[in-house]
């Protein structure tokens, strides 16, 4: 089945119809989606700024990252479910929106970046977290992460514009 056919089929399902047409489903999903970003996006920002040595300097890196982790995973799960449902509500709109796909691609890059940090330089965090500066590799990943999330806000907002 081609992608166009898939989007057509999905948009004609009862489920997609209901998400799109019901008076509250779509706004409620957007509210959940954006409130989750608003409440937990700060943990991504402050976590990265900690690795860069710009915030919460008195708290060890592993403690900041470790304490934020469960909240960030919770937020990620909520965002993934609400985001998928939002896209499923109008596949003919989102499936052919260039900004939607740029945002999705950036999200994947940000995820890969986080995994590289987590299973790379972060494994030796005990050795460097008390030093005045994190190793260049750690700071590089944190800087890239911060940059990607800022760009994601712009491309995510632009989905509605295109």
């Amino acid at each position, binding site marked *: 089945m081609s992608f166009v056919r898939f989007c057509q089929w999905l948009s004609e399902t009862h489920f997609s119809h209901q998400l799109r047409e019901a008076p509250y489903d779509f706004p409620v999903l957007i509210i959940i989606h954006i409130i989750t970003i608003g*409440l937990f996006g700060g943990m991504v920002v402050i976590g990265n700024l900690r690795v860069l040595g710009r915030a919460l300097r008195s708290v060890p890196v592993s403690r900041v990252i470790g304490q934020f982790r469960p909240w960030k995973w919770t937020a990620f799960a909520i965002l993934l479910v609400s985001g998928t449902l939002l896209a499923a509500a109008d596949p003919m709109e989102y499936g052919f929106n260039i900004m939607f796909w740029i945002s999705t691609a950036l999200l994947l890059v940000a995820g890969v970046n986080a995994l590289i940090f987590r299973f790379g330089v972060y494994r030796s965090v005990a050795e460097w977290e008390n030093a005045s500066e994190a190793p260049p590799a750690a700071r590089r990943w944190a800087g890239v992460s911060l940059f990607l999330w800022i760009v994601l806000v712009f491309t995510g907002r632009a989905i509605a514009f295109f």
Partner: protein
Amino acid sequence: MFLAHILQAHPEALPLNPIARWEWVFPIVESIHICGFALLVGSIVILDFRLLGICLRGQPVSRIAKELSPWIWAGLALQLTTGPYLFSGDPHEYVQIAAFRNKMLFFALALIFHFTVIRVATRPSDDSAPLGWRRPAAFVSLGLWFCVLLAGLWIGNL
């Protein structure tokens, strides 16, 4: 609203405002506004979570507050510049939207609460005291910022 009066007094200036002239300016400034929200409210949420005792427990409250403070101020500076600029694009319209007026009300309340009650709650002298009344205070702070975000979303009619 003071700003609305200034802007309404010079209707001939409105078409010269970039945000009213080009349709792409608004989403870009709004994106900066969203980043500012993540910085301002994200930092405050971390502080409130600490006051609730669900985050960064081992660290003294006053130190967390002190180290997050520059980012709270940076976020506030971003919001206080991008917010009024977004407003300047169509001041007549915004003052008539109930959600906008509610947002400004909650924003004022949340800021006042943060710089009075939460400031007292994060005094160094209370670092070794039990969290006590500071837990419900943090809950009120979270509730107020939640209302700011919700009213903000409502301005765009979702």
